[in-house]
């Protein structure tokens, strides 16, 4: 707890130290209260179909936030709202306000590319590029303009260590990433996301396509990473949410039914529907 508190203070200092934006922008984009992620009255539409209803959520500190709920409840849609990956789907529409680190990310002048560097994403199916292990990790820094081979090597090493994959691959960095096992590929994808030095990591059911032992490794990794990153994870698996998360949100039919500390949500849910779901009465 002390740890988290000191982190928050650190974050606040960092915000104050930021180069001062013009006063107008400051008024418009920065909220008084500091939040990693703050979503207010979010409604989301695929064409005429509404997928999210009036979702409000505040993630105030680093740690792991898990989003649970039955298939099609909108939890993945919600996750993709946070780094604007839904922009890729034509005819989607959004109402409400989404702020990351106090800054509204749905303004006309939002730099989406920059946003995605800050809010990186790991997908359900491991999706390494058809390149070498090294080139996969180096991709993010390289498109950012980094060419220095030694610096790149350092980033690759740190990122792979960060994703607990370094010892397994350090002797074969030039081999194709697709030759790795599924679990290794997923950790590679996490390492690749870490290499762009994000502050928030979004994970969309990252263990649903891999075996239990690899899942265990990734869960351990998530616990390690959450001291430095805010991790928001969508999971199908309630036990997983209970094991690894600090906060949990329960989605049902596009609504955020309940949001709270994982310990209390699982032992003492406030909403009847949450209780029904976590005790396995449906879903």
């Amino acid at each position: 707890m002390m740890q988290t508190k000191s982190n928050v203070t650190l974050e606040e200092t960092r915000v104050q130290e930021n180069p001062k934006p013009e006063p107008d922008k400051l008024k418009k984009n920065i909220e008084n209260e500091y939040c990693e992620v703050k979503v207010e009255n979010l409604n989301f539409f695929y064409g005429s179909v509404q997928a999210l209803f009036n979702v409000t959520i505040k993630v105030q500190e680093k740690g792991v936030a898990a989003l649970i709920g039955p298939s099609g409840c909108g939890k993945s849609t919600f996750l993709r709202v946070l780094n604007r990956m839904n922009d890729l789907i034509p005819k989607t529409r959004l109402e409400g306000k989404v702020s990351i680190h106090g800054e509204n990310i749905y303004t006309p002048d939002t730099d989406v590319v920059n946003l995605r560097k800050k809010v990186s994403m790991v997908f359900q199916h491991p999706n390494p590029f058809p390149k070498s292990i090294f080139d996969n990790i180096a991709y993010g820094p390289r498109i950012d303009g980094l060419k220095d081979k030694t610096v790149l090597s350092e980033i690759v090493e740190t990122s792979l260590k960060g994703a607990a994959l370094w010892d397994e691959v350090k002797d074969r960095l030039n081999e194709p990433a697709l030759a790795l096992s599924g679990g290794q590929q997923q950790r590679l994808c996490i390492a690749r996301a870490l290499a762009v030095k994000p502050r928030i990591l979004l994970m969309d059911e990252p263990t649903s396509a891999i075996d239990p032992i690899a899942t265990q490794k990734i869960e351990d990794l998530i616990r390690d990473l959450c001291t430095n990153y805010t991790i928001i994870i969508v999971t199908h698996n309630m036990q997983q949410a209970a094991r690894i998360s600090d906060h949990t949100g329960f989605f049902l039919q596009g609504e955020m039914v309940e949001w709270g500390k994982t310990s209390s949500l699982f032992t003492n849910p406030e909403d009847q529907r949450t209780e029904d779901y976590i005790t396995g009465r449906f879903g």
Partner: protein
Amino acid sequence: MVSITEKAMKAIFVFCGLAIILFLVGILYILLSNSMPGLIELGLGPFFAADRWNPGAYGEPTYSLLNMIYGTLMVTLGALIFAVPVGVAAAAYLAEIASPWEREFFKPIVEVLAGVPSVVLGFFGLVVLAPLIARAFNLNSGLNAFNGAILVGIMALPTIITLAEDAITAVPKEYRHASLALGGTRWQTIWKITTPAAFSGITAAAMLGMGRAIGETMTVLMVTGNMVARPESFLDSVRTLSAGIAIDIGDVVFNSTHFHALFVAGLLLFLITFAVNLLADILIQRKPEVSK
């Protein structure tokens, strides 16, 4: 009753399928049977000798295809230098950037371009391109390898665009999403991820475009000037193998050495195109690896 109709229908379809093989074998047979007498009489050497193609010469006729091979290579490679970058960029545009209606608008245009008769394109080369080239490079005539290369490149474009677009579209969208989620711009994603992942398909597209270019006859006949001298630059007049055959075949003496020599040129052309197409096919079969 039904089963007899079924069987008859099946036989007809199988026959039509086999007919393709029959045609190919037949063409190869005709080429071989007509070029063999020439090859037996002269051997392979004179066809690749350093002199020029002059089968009608008084005294010592010569049969070297070498200058025409150079001509074909110059026109083909010149066409590819121009058509591959343009075609791949157009394909990337259609596959990655164009909105649905833009795609609906451009794709039929590409198909129309594929359907323009080569003679008509030859007119364009004669009337529009040739004077422009002559003026730009201060030449007496704009009928040269450069002119041919541009027109043949235009003819190869539809093949390259269509096949390269297929290859780019076939790249799993997971790669794109991964790149974009790492803060890649659309341009970086196309340039560094999608196009390299579609590399084998794009190469195949270029090869098939090349196959189209090598055999092209009418347009090059009309715009390259058809001199059999050894070309020294793209601004020299050249004669390609295909144009060489078309020019001579009309008034050659049947079953003469000259006649057989033309079939040797045809056989060579056939073998080159066959090899290029085969290679392209192998590349297309090699699907990009996808993670499970």
